[in-house]
Structures are given as structure tokens and as C-alpha cells.
């Protein structure tokens, strides 16, 4: 796999909503490149006949009944950390619509 270009870093930063500084971009390019090189070792590992393991519990069908439950926290509790609000609404910058 090729090393990451500055453009690659910028695209990833955009996807991840991080406004990186010039210094950070350069630094990350090197660091991430180094880490990706380290994990490169997996490319040649033989995984024939094996399926990925996404969960180690082996659980299936974990559900709850279709009933309202009191979790304890009130809407007021849940909204108390809002950075910006208008009455009971979460206030954000204009969403382009």
C-alpha cells in the first residue's frame, strides 16, 4: 500500500471533521504512514477458510420488550449540557437546506 499523500490526509480530515493545522498535517502524514507500515504485516497472512469475528460473545437475538422504561434521567437532565439552546430545542448553526 502506498504512503499517504497530503491530499489523502486532507480528505480523511474532512471525513472526520477535523480542521488540522499545517504542522499537524505534516506530522500525521509521517506518523500514520509509519503505523500503516507496521500493520502491513497482515497483508500476507493466510486467512483461507476463515470468517471475520466482529463480536467475541457469540450472542444473538438480544432484545427488550416493546415497553416504555424509565431510565431515570429527565429531559431536563439530558439537555443540561447543551452548548446552545432555544427553549427546548438544540440550537445549531444553520443547516444548509
Amino acid at each position, binding site marked *: 500500500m502506498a504512503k499517504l499523500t497530503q491530499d489523502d490526509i486532507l480528505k480523511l480530515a474532512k471525513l472526520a471533521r477535523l480542521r488540522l493545522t499545517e504542522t499537524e498535517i505534516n506530522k500525521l502524514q509521517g506518523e500514520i504512514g509509519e503505523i500503516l507500515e*507496521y500493520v502491513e504485516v497482515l497483508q500476507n497472512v493466510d486467512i483461507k477458510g476463515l470468517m471475520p469475528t466482529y463480536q467475541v460473545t457469540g450472542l444473538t437475538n438480544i432484545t427488550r420488550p416493546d415497553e416504555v422504561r424509565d431510565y431515570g434521567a429527565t429531559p431536563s437532565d439530558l439537555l443540561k449540557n447543551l452548548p446552545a439552546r432555544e427553549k427546548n430545542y438544540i440550537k445549531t448553526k444553520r443547516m444548509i437546506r
Partner: protein
Amino acid sequence: MNNWPVIADIAKDVESGKVKAVDLVKEALKRIEDASEYKAVIANIKVRSLERAGYIDEQVRTGKKIGRLAGVPFIAKDNYLAFGADTTAASNILKGFDAPYQATAIEKLEAEGAILVAKANLDAFAHGSSTENSDYFTTLNPHDKTRVPGGSSGGSGAAVILGLVPFALGSDTGGSIRLPASFCGAVGMKPTYGLVSRSGVVAMASSLDCMGPLTSNVTDAGLILDVMSGRDPLDSTTIERDYISYTKLDIGLKGKIIGVIKEYMGDGLDGNIKANIQTAINNLETAGATIKEISLPSLPLALAVYYIICPAEVSSNLSRYDGQRYGYSAKDADTLDDSYELSREKGFGAEAKRRIMIGTYVLSSGYYDAYYNKAQTVRTKLINEFQAAFKEVDFLAGPTSPSTAFKIGENTSDPLKMYLTDIMTVAANLVGVPAISVPCGTSDGLPVGLQLMAPQQKDRDLLGLAKAFEDLNT
């Protein structure tokens, strides 16, 4: 260092009225104050803890039963949501966050009468092996102030060894309970994945995160785990636990087969550490266990697997920190994208950004199969090797870490070098098995940790082995 009585005894004394919970809390808070130079704690919980202690003492006066942890003060890693102080995960992006609910683990402990007195320092979002990634400050190793306590539950490890409280809570995604236990000389248990609820703990890597205790002895670890564990309707990944109490640990060594992991005892291992581990193994053998050498050939791949899966899940779990509903929100933002990008840029530390970027990369279209899916499949390989190994042996053993506590700043300039600290601990998280680190002598005055592992759901057996080992040394 930790001169608290055994937890069961503390609780008995409080329930009998012999000791007042309020006095225990005051003692803990005083010790925290006195040890502040070690910076183990991010925030104290004075008001609520004294209130709860007062209430417990009052209940005792009227003859009510409290619980198995009556009046026992404890510290929780600051990624556990709790009342009484902010929950920050040692990150600027959660500075000032007032949790609207508590972690199930904490609710369970409080239901038995335990009292939370402070939040411990950690690597921000639990990303790290030394607490140097905390956005606030680095905790100092109680044995040597120029060295790290290990991470990411460094504050918890230091707190226990400094004797601030009888037990502390940590989280372990790639070794974050075991490593600080090893570096500080404490007992640190990562249980079977799913044994303890993750509800109310800031998620790092969801398929790897395990909650567990750090204590100064195995008996205490067993009791705390016994209280913390069990199916939680708020966490779909919790498993049914075995019903024999984790306080029944007199299992003994006779007939037990311990496999020493060949790949962890290679030529590159530090000579002192190797010697310590070898001595420990020899003692176990003398005491009745059978020792075998066992090979898990894919172990050298575990770190690479971990450093794909972990950042991937991290990048996803950290998406919610966007400055819109809680946490840090950039005031100088004009547009929505500004708000997102500036809040996350200023709020997250370097390591969080690093992991988010790597995670985003390995999940992005075009790379998903080669990285994420491939790593999850090599994970299967590891799981199969562990299963095969456990057909031959009951337990696995080796060092917890390739080194003892390193100097502050020694590994911070090279992220990869820091990642290599986890080389012996990540496999247990990938496979989901329980793993414990117990003190195993010192090397140049610094604690060495012996890591023991057992098959999934054999947590009690593992604690039993650890207890037997501990008894050999006392």
C-alpha cells in the same frame, strides 16, 4: 503502601457500626489531598460522598443492612459516568460535562454501599499506555516520580498503590488495567468480555472494552468483580455469568496446567523481567501446578490486528463528540462545518486525532476489506489458536509488559514505540478472554507484573490461580 484492610472486613466493620462510613470517606479524601503531587485524581467528589456516607451511617444506626461494600470508598477512572463531579475522560472536549446518568458498574457498587470519592486521571479517552495523553496532566508512578504509572488507567493504578482508597475502577481495551497494575505493583483484572456492563462508560473500542478493578490484593479484586458483573439490560453485549461467587477462590494449584507463552518469553525480552517471570513459574510448579511451554504462532500479529480494529471503532465512537449536544463547542464558528471542525480540532488531543484518522482510513471504501475486514479475520485466527491452547492447558502465563515503568517523555515522540508497550496485553482483548496482572517482584526497584489468562468465562478459576500465586509470596 495500601494499608486499607481487606474490603470485606471494612464493610463488616461499617455494618456493625464499629467504623463510620463518614470517617472512611474523610480519610480517603485526606489521603488524596496529601498525595496530590502524584496527580492521580482529576476531581474529588466531596459533597455527594459525604452525603452518602452519612446516609449509610444513619441506616446502620437504625439496624438496616447495607451491603457487601458498606462504606467502602473507591475511585473511578474518569471515563466512567458518575454523579458528583464532571466526567471528562481526561479530554478537553468533555471538560465540564455533567453526566445525566451513571455507569451500571458504579450503580451496582453503590447498591452494595460503596462510596465514590474521586475520578482518576487517564490517557484521554483511554488512548494510551502511560497517562501522558491526558489533556490535563500526567500521573506520577508512586515508586518513582520520574516515571509513568502506565496507562490508560494510570490514575487508578497509582491511587491503589498510594493507598488512597481500597480499590479503583479501570477500563481495559488493549491492556489499560493490566499495564498500570504491572507498572505500579497492583492487581489489575480484565474480565471476560461482556462480564461487566459497558453502559455509562465512555466507549473506546466497543468490541474490546472491558471494565474491571484495580486492587492491592486478589481477594479484593474478586469481591469487586463479583459485585460489578452480570447481565445488564442496558448493554446488549453482556453475558450471563457463572453463579458461583468470585469470592470463593480457594481452588488451589493441584492438577492445574499452566502454559508459558513462548512468543512472550523470546530472546528480546528484558533479562530481569524474564528472570522474575521464570521464578514465578518455578514457584507455581513447586507448589503443585504443571508447567508447559505453549506456542500461539499468530501472537506477533496481535498488535497489528489491534491497531487496525481499535482505531476503527474509536473513530466511530468519537463521532458523537461534535460540539452540538454536550462538551466543548467552538465559540468562533460561523458555519456548521466550522462548528464541527473547530470543536473537534480544539477539543481532541493529538492521540485522539491520530486514532480517528487511522480509523477513518481503515474503514473507508476501498480500504475496508484490506484493513478492517482482514484484521477481523486474523482475529479469528488468534481466537482459534487460543482455543486450541486451552485444550492443552488451563491457563496461560507470561509477563504483562516487555518493560517496567518507563520514564516520563521516553516514548512520547514516537506513537508506534508507545503502542509497542501493549504488545503482550492486546491479545486478551481481541480474543475476549479474562486476563489478570499480579505483582511479581521488582526489577531495579520497579514492579514487574505476571500476566495470567484463562478461557472465556473462567474468571473465577483465573482469580483462584492468582490467589494461589499471591499466597505463595506472602
